[in-house]
């Protein structure tokens, strides 16, 4: 597939994905809070997401690269974030009910995941430049595309 976006779009995407990676690493490098099974699952998701983010960043820094591979990696990052957001919400509820984490830890976690989601929302315009509106619908889940990209209704 032909790359449509310019280097400025890629640079913006890089910045946000770097921020995303940094947030992920902060969570992954912290010691487990309460060993709840949801925390284990969350780390499984984040570990995959971290690996995919690194691959996407490496790819984006090259002069030329296979757009299809980049597209798949981006799609995985969004899908990982979808399940991570769901899982962290559950983990926060579980930890609150079990009183197994202090309030500050939970608030901090909630904040970090909100920031992660925000990073992914911020790069939608640049990704749209690169992949085009029609293709974007298959790459980025609708909930990250606001306003919706649907047309001609």
């Amino acid at each position, binding site marked *: 597939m032909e790359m449509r976006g310019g280097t400025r779009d890629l640079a913006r995407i890089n910045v946000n994905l770097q921020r995303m990676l940094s947030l992920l690493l902060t969570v992954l490098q912290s010691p487990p809070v309460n060993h*709840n*099974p*949801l925390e*284990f*699952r969350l780390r*499984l*998701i984040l570990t*995959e997401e971290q690996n995919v983010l690194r691959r996407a960043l490496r790819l984006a820094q090259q002069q030329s690269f296979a757009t*299809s591979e980049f597209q*798949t990696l981006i*799609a*995985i990052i969004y*899908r*990982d974030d*979808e*399940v991570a957001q*769901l*899982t962290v*919400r*559950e*983990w926060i*509820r*579980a930890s609150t*009910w*079990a009183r197994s984490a202090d309030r500050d830890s939970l608030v901090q976690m909630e904040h970090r995941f909100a920031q992660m989601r925000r990073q992914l929302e911020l790069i939608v315009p640049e990704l749209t430049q690169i992949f085009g509106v*029609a293709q974007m*619908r*298959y790459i980025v*889940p*609708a*909930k990250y595309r*606001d*306003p*919706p990209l*649907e*047309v*001609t*209704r």
Partner: protein
Amino acid sequence: MSWENERIDINVYSQGDIDKWVYSTCNLCSVGCGCYIAVKDQQIVGIKGNGAHPINRGRLGPKGEHQWYANHSKDRLLQPLLRNRSGQLVPASWDEALGLFVEKTQDVLHRMGSDAFAIYSTGQAMLEDYYTLGKIGRAGLGTHVIDANARLCTSSVQWGWIQSFGVDGVPASYEDVDQTDTLLLFGHNVAETGTVLWERIVSRKQKTGKPYLIVVDPRKTLTAQRADLFLQLYPGTNVALLNGILHLLLRHGFVDEDFVQMHTIGYEELEKSVAHWTPAYTAQITGLPIEQIEAAARQLGTTRSLVSTALQGAFQSTGGSKSSVLMNNIHLIRGLIGKPGSGPLQMAGQSSATSNRNAGGAGPYPGQRNPDNPRHIEEMAQLWNVEAASLPVGGEESIEEMINRMESNRLGLIWNIHTNPMVSLPNRRRARQAFEKVFVVVQDPFLTETTEVADIVLPTAMWGEKEGVMENSDRTVNLLRKAVAGPAGVRSDFEILLSFAKGMGFKDRDGQPLIGYTTPEACFEEWKRLSRGRFCDMTGMTYAKLESHNGMQWPAPDTSAHPRGTVRLYEDLHFRTHIDEVQSFGRDINTGRSRTMAEFAALHAEGRAILYAVLYEPPAESPSRDYPFWLTTGRLLWQWHTRTKTGRAPHLHLAAPQGYVEINAADAQVLAILPGELVRIESPRSWIEVPARVVDTIQRGLVFVPFHFGSWQHPHAANELTVDFVDPVSKQPVFKQASCRIVKLRQNYAFQTGDTLAEVAKSHQLTLEQLAHANRLMPPYRVDVGTELEIPLSMVDVVIPPYLPYREVDIKARFEQSED
């Protein structure tokens, strides 16, 4: 035909002869029994089983026999209601109600976008309703936020089929149950949830000794009491047991290597994943004796035919979709699928949940089309004559995601159709708070706990008052004829959907109405065209054929030589895993992350089934010092879901009129709780107060609360207590595992001079033995003056009557009340 003899169960209340019998299908549970509705003077006056119908040969379950009473209930809604400015629901005309509905919809779409409109429907409506709803939702409104209460009961099995075989669809059928050597009932209390199917199983077993029954359940249910091998495992350990069984199957070479080689992928990963699931480790996690695990593996490894079924004990547990694919794994490594007497037959929970899944009312696009496949989106656009760009791409959002949208102000309106989420959703207090933030439209024949948060209530026709088809648990599509007109003032769901579409002015790309049909039968004909060439092809069906054949099983293409359709899937051993066959690219079984098209293509499944390596994940909430008991929830034989229908049938209501908690006799002994004593069950979320049923059918440390009872006025609702965690793949909530504690509700009485224990007991409507037990007194019972005696606040004798027709087959009492 499977049953040798017909037995016509009948329940008619009529003075004089009835006028006619009208062909129909039972609308309760997923077995799909054929029946006739008795009509006299334009009223439904009874029901009888259809003796020619192969599924039931005239038999009906107790709920089925009594389902028509609700139609006559005096509290049926006969006109729409709107919530006024002072918060009261007040009567309105249909024009006013639908006008407001359309106005609010347009406002939400304009201000917040398509995904701010949510549809939450049911598993008990007609295929034609679901198809129309899916068309309105996707081609009309353009929303992804479209789900059904089937999410609460069958989503995990739907995803089990998709993950393993590429598409939804139960491979085996009831005919295979009649032929199999071994029947595995995994978390499936069929004796109470599918009485007619259970009769069929037990009848054969009594005559032939077959099938060998393996039952897996933490409770010694009535089903378990008939098992040849009963595995009473710890709550939340289904995945551990299945991994342990797979370990033994592989270790002992109970593997059809040719089948695995030719028809599956993923064996190596599976082999690695179960390597550490030794019998000793499995026993440690599940609490089962090693010998039982080995016996199960031996039976499953050597049987020449196998049907495995499952229900909520699997799907509503932690790892629901994992359990589903692990059961599929067993069939696949043994090559026991697509043959007479063999195949997975994991059930649906409701009478037409599978119709909703296939017709596109929830989940994928109609005809099991994949919302992430551009070719399928293009195909749908052509079939509906709309722009492909206007159709939403990507999977639907589940009810859990709807709640999250409500909480984060990203949802404006929810259209709630024939379901009662304020009773059925887990952690219902949270759900109520979320619903109160948005505009709620409820479609229901009655005021319910959910109409308390409704802004518009639309009164609907009920079973017998409308026409359409439903699909049961073994892919049989059955017809329901309209027996009578509903009472003046109500409308069928189908009519409401058409009115809404017209009010919204939905058009196709030629400017014609998006919904061009006006009758359910015409709708069915359109749906059939969409099903052509898909796995769930129904082009060979017509209303007339469905009636004359007493149901047909899909796939039933118009080119088929089999008049009743297809008994079992995958006889050709072609699994639907080519990229344009699958209805989803699948999800990571351990994290739930959706696969991309490229990832799925890289699997190269291409007609082969997919084996999975599954990690065991314990429940996210388990007993603790503060909440030392496991809580599990479930159904009773006598009630259906949230009792909007069965609670209005006098016989059913009287059989099980209220909530309760089952407590193991030994736990009750330790806590000095009396049978029938009112206790408070507290979880980290909320509490209920219900009488205790002290039984020996539940394991120690576990309590059971039926989920049917949910009035806001009485604290009996199981979902006050449950956790709102979901299966990561299927998004089905985990209703079966949470933690709780039991709190006694007692007053004190100071023993006075001149008192006798017998008199004190009598004055509080207790026996001496009850008073002594409540106070841990040992014979001879003596207390000193001034001793504070504990008196239970209330006692309610909770007797669940036996189901009489069933007792002709099995004379055991339904529940064995403890002697204590």
